[in-house]
């Protein structure tokens, strides 16, 4: 099979190559939808069963940091989309710039996540033997509606760590892919005819953003209007 700089041997045109690659990425993303779907389903079943404990758990999360991180991740999707545009328009320096910005924003997101995780460890909100609900976060009537509040709150935090952890793992993979793209971009590999890697990694990055678009309201915004 012969291969030129921009066209792999099994394809006849760059358009065919691009369509095949993006279709392949979408098929992978569909498996990711079902992968995350299972844990979203687990969350939905348990939230519906223990609404009081989930509400209390949700209100202990830092709304300011959560909102900030949502903005940071959305901005990173924008810079990623701009990197794809720069590669299509053949603006080589801008590809590098926007890829670097995306990587930096992704890093900020993960850094904020580390701060949030550390707070949860400090406040004994990590499920396990030292788990303890702070009394000031538990309204008096809550214990009456759910006698096993502490167990069910641990369920919320287990899901919080599983869902955000899995999301953060995907972000780390994305950061690795971005670093790989940056290397290619610095070597001038991406042209108007060959930019499929940028487009395909972009699809993955936007997918991870969509997962967060749902995680943010589901984890941070339950019963926010209630006191406590």
């Amino acid at each position, binding site marked *: 099979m012969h291969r030129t700089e921009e066209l792999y041997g099994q394809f006849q045109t760059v358009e065919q190559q691009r*369509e095949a690659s993006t*279709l392949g990425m979408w098929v992978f993303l569909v498996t990711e939808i079902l992968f995350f779907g299972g844990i979203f389903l687990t969350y939905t079943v348990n939230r519906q069963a223990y609404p009081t404990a989930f509400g209390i758990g949700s209100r202990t999360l830092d709304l300011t940091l959560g909102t900030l991180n949502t903005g940071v991740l*959305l901005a990173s*999707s924008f810079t990623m989309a701009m990197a794809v545009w720069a590669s299509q328009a053949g603006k080589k320096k801008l590809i590098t710039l926007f890829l670097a910005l995306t990587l930096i924003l992704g890093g900020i997101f993960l850094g904020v996540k580390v701060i949030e995780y550390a707070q949860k460890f400090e406040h004994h909100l990590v499920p396990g033997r030292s788990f303890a609900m702070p009394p000031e976060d538990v309204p008096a009537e809550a214990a009456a509606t759910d006698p096993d509040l502490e167990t069910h709150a641990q369920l919320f935090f287990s899901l919080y760590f599983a869902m955000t952890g899995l999301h953060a793992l995907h972000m780390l993979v994305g950061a690795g892919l971005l670093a790989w793209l940056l290397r290619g971009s610095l070597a001038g590999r991406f042209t108007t005819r060959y930019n499929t890697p940028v487009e395909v990694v972009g699809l993955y990055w936007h997918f991870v953003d969509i997962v967060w678009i749902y995680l*943010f309201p589901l984890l941070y915004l339950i019963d926010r209007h209630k006191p406590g």
Partner: protein
Amino acid sequence: MSEHITSPRVYLAIILTLMALTAATVGAALADLGPLNIILALVIATSKATLVVLYFMHARYSPRRTQLVVIAGIFWLAILLVMTMADYLTRSWQRL
């Protein structure tokens, strides 16, 4: 089929809408809307996800074949969620 290039102006309009919707969902969560709280949160999240899929991920300008894969994925997720919740939410009904 030639490639569709989305212009930076479109991306800018999308990101500004996404940021506004984020502010809206936080604002809505701070108000007591009863059962509407969760519905509104999910409607806003789905609007945001739709914008990302259609414009950032170029699904709007993708070949039909690719669009079919996207829709199939969402459809299967809907089966997973709807069928399971149809079970869990109706379990208490039998005790009349």
